[in-house]
């Protein structure tokens, strides 16, 4: 698998929101505080294992819904409401992945051995979940699972599609396009989703 993986359209993660994503069967979450920086973490509070995507953002901190443990942008725990006077040990931290944004998408990396990709600004079109294996989807699009992006000719231009594997039989496509008719591109991609799923089910 490529080192850097596109996991969402930046547009779908505005300031103040959490978003759950499944990446190769791992539960991952994205959140964005007021500083505008997208954070990509394991979707699990180190305290009791609660999914952090069910929590809430205040300022530049993410709060777990279960007991209110609060984590800052550096993934370290800032505050434990049940022990308001405690200086929280720096060893208490959420599990953060390396994250970056480029080409209108949020990207994550488990080891960040390679530098992150650098793409021009691209207009977000749509994220689609396709109930078919990535190998099948990428082959149908004329790409390969070796690359995190595919160029799809559309209406005289090209849509840039990021993708990630949710699990063996589900592909998430993150479509962008410079100057594309968004509604027409969306309809085109939904038709593609339908034919890929019908083939996968056959």
């Amino acid at each position, binding site marked *: 698998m490529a080192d850097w993986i596109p996991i*969402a359209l930046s547009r779908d993660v505005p300031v103040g*929101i959490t*978003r759950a994503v*499944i990446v190769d069967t791992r539960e991952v979450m994205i959140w964005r505080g007021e500083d505008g920086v997208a954070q990509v973490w394991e979707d699990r509070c180190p305290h009791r294992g609660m999914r952090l995507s*069910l*929590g809430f953002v205040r300022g530049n901190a993410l709060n777990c819904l279960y007991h209110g443990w609060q984590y800052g942008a550096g993934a370290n725990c800032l505050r434990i409401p049940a022990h308001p006077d405690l200086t929280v040990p720096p060893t208490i931290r959420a599990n953060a992945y390396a994250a970056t944004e480029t080409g209108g998408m949020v990207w994550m990396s488990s080891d960040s051995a390679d530098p992150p990709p650098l793409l021009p600004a691209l207009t977000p079109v749509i*994220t689609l*979940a396709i109930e078919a294996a990535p190998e099948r989807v990428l082959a149908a699009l004329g790409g390969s699972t070796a690359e995190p992006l595919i160029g799809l000719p559309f209406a005289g231009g090209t849509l840039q599609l990021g993708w990630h594997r949710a699990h063996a039989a589900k592909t*998430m496509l993150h479509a962008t396009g410079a100057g594309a008719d968004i*509604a027409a591109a969306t309809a085109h991609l939904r038709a593609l989703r339908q034919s890929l799923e019908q083939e996968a089910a056959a």
Partner: protein
Amino acid sequence: MPKLYDYVLSGSCYKVRLLLSLLGIAYETQAVDFFPGREHKRPEFLALNPLGQLPVFEDAGLVLRDAQAILCHLANTYDASGQWLPRDVRFGSVMMWLSFAGGELMAISGARMIAMLNYAGDLAALQAKARAALRLLDDHLADRAQAGGLWLVGATPTIADIAMFPYVALSHDAGIGHEDYPAINLWQRQVRKLPGFVGMPGVPDYF
């Protein structure tokens, strides 16, 4: 005072509680022991609703069943602005989503009762139907967002949003997360931000 026959874990009762709160209507509740007592199948309750289903709403001599019908009654009676049940070109679209909320989307309720209360049934089949309903909703909300719209119908929230929200928000109880549905994720946050919003067990007030 209006009276809601209520079960705290019911997403359908929550539809009614949510709109009552958003409209600021004072009401009383009578708790019905849906589980494990099956009070909704006893003769006293069947006299109120022969279908043996929650919620039931009593208001000025009316006895109403069906959450969607009760939402219509509340908007029709208490919302002078007409925002929640618009009588113009939006009316048909609002009705369409109400039917969907009481129809296809209830697959989530069925799956949730199996997953949460150990009811008998085909969980995988209901989850597949629930996913189909959620995809339809996500596609619609994505189209609305591309056109600059935040709500299911028109420029303001309507009872269509209130009828749809509870079981979408409760889908986690049925083993269905929102990972596949980015537009739903954005919309449900808008619903939570409405003045007067209330949650229920499984639907936090926080956003």
